[in-house]
């Protein structure tokens, strides 16, 4: 559906010119989404009746909302009242949340047509969307390849035009890496910028919800709508939400862009490096100052993350035991029921991370692993504090490679974890970071450029990203 492929403003222009009822349009959107889903599988399932039900509410909401009639896909770990929300896990089979996540309330208030069930790695544990218990999502650029993950379905749905925008969640790169691999704009806001009330928790000190869009303008618009303090999320910060859209379009002369040598390592695909260097040239020509910076603890970030994230996950996932919701296994006593329900409900990557997380938190290992990782986390954060005294934003590749083949990294968890080596530091330090498309590699696959900013510095990121979007020749 080509009308969904050119961003919110163009879609709304097209929508306004339609002489039909919105429910007719929503019906087309649902049919297109279902058709595309046969090959891409960005949604676990497309429920036309549910989409039409939501479309009825949109129609009633009036035309004044900033997102009136805009189809927005939502990752399967963000609660939508009465709509199946399962984290792509068998253990949450049949779960229909009794309430909306705060971001859903905000989207619907703005008039968006919210479409749930965007596929993901089970419980967001993965970088390829292959660990979904419902089968993998495929990359719309080449369906033999992964879309990235864990928000792979949300990324692919935007890239394939099933929706105009989507919401994902990012714990170690789960918005930005699939954004890069699918050639779209993908933002992880500052920790605390967007309420996580209703986001099914993975690693609570790292998780953040963010927009995945066709262009920078849409990213800014969506963040304006979903950001802000929420009394229901005690980690959301009470800082005013700027008018991000208004910040776009200004010049970037004098903006200082830091290039950390530690990110330009062996193992980056040649074409990724080329495209990222071209992006630096774009910025130089626009009058930005490019400076070398150092983030000396970068090489420890992955290790730090693979202790902290599984530790927090093992704790957060303790709640799935077959008592309150989701899958319950038949058993003779309570403990047996816990064990059987979890055994049947969790896939291999979830078990691996829960066991790893339990081990590093267990008596005798807590200090050696978890506490050590938290101290290294301080070092990583201090690196960024020092770097941001010398520059306004930091430029790196989003991921070392473009989209890889389905199945290629499934048997080797460490090689899969390395897909997130450039995105993880921003989560550990709580910083905002955006991935924007910066051209294609030799096989015609999209390359992502990452810009990281100071805490609550999303406006600067948008401004820089927008300048690149308007002046990029790729």
């Amino acid at each position, binding site marked *: 559906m080509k009308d969904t492929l050119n961003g919110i403003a163009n879609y709304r222009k097209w929508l306004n010119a339609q002489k039909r009822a919105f429910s007719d349009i929503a019906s087309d959107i649902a049919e297109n989404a279902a058709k595309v889903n046969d090959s891409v599988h960005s949604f676990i399932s497309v429920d036309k009746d549910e989409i039409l039900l939501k479309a009825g509410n949109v129609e009633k909401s009036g035309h004044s909302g900033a997102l009136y009639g805009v189809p927005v896909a939502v990752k399967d770990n963000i609660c939508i009242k009465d709509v199946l929300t399962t984290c792509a896990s068998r253990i949450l089979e049949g*779960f*229909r949340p*009794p*309430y909306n996540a705060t971001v859903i309330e905000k989207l619907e208030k703005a008039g968006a047509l919210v479409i749930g069930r965007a596929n993901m790695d089970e419980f967001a544990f993965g970088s390829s969307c292959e660990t979904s218990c419902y089968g993998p999502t495929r990359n719309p650029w080449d369906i033999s390849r992964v879309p990235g993950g864990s928000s792979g379905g949300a990324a692919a749905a935007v890239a394939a035009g099933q929706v105009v925008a989507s919401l994902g969640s990012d714990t170690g790169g789960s918005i930005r890496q699939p954004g890069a691999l699918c050639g779209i704009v993908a933002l992880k806001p500052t*920790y605390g910028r967007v309420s996580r009330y209703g986001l099914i928790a993975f690693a609570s*000190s790292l998780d953040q919800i963010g927009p995945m869009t066709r262009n920078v303008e849409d990213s800014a618009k969506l963040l304006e709508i979903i950001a802000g303090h929420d009394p229901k999320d*005690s*980690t959301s*910060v009470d800082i005013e939400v700027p008018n991000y859209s208004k910040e776009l379009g200004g010049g970037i002369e004098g903006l200082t862009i830091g290039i950390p040598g530690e990110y330009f390592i062996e193992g980056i695909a040649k074409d990724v490096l080329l495209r990222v260097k071209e992006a630096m040239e774009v910025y130089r020509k626009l009058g930005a100052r490019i400076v070398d910076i150092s983030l000396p603890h970068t*090489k*420890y970030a*992955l290790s*730090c993350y*693979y*202790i902290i994230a599984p530790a927090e996950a*093992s704790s957060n996932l*303790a709640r799935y*035991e*077959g*008592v*309150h*919701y*989701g899958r*319950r296994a038949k*058993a*003779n*006593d*309570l*403990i*047996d*029921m*816990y*064990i059987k329900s*979890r055994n049947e409900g*969790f896939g*291999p990557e979830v*078990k*691996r991370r829960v*066991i*790893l997380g*339990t*081990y590093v938190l267990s008596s*005798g290992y807590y200090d*050696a*692993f978890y*506490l*050590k990782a*938290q*101290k*290294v986390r*301080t*070092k990583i*954060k201090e690196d960024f504090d020092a770097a941001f005294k010398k520059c306004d934003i930091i430029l790196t590749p989003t991921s070392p490679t473009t989209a890889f083949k389905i199945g290629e990294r499934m048997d080797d*968890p*460490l090689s899969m974890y390395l897909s997130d080596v450039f995105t993880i530091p921003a989560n*550990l*330090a*709580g*910083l905002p970071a955006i991935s924007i498309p910066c051209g294609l590699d030799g096989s015609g696959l999209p390359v992502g450029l990452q810009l990281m900013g100071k*805490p609550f510095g999303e406006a600067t990121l948008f401004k820089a990203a927008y300048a690149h979007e308007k002046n990029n020749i790729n």
Partner: protein
Amino acid sequence: MDNPKNEITNEIVEYAARLARLSLSEKEVAVFKVQLGGILNYVSQLNEIDTSNTPPTSHAIPSLLNVFREDVPVKSLPREEALKNAPDESDGFFRVPRVI
């Protein structure tokens, strides 16, 4: 569990699984032993860093401490709603198999 050499054995995998309320097949134990060993070996690089004078960071916003609200009752999720997803319920409670 005592494990001075930090080796991942079948017993360690089974011990962590038990704490996490999982029970693994022999095959799973064998696979996880190798994979967890590889991951823990990789993350042991953190020991290269001297952190003797470094405080831990538990989350990224140091200004966010002790978020309180006024102690006034607010409406909560109605009981029927909270029970709607329950695999089994009885008289307004979650029902589970026998405990002892």
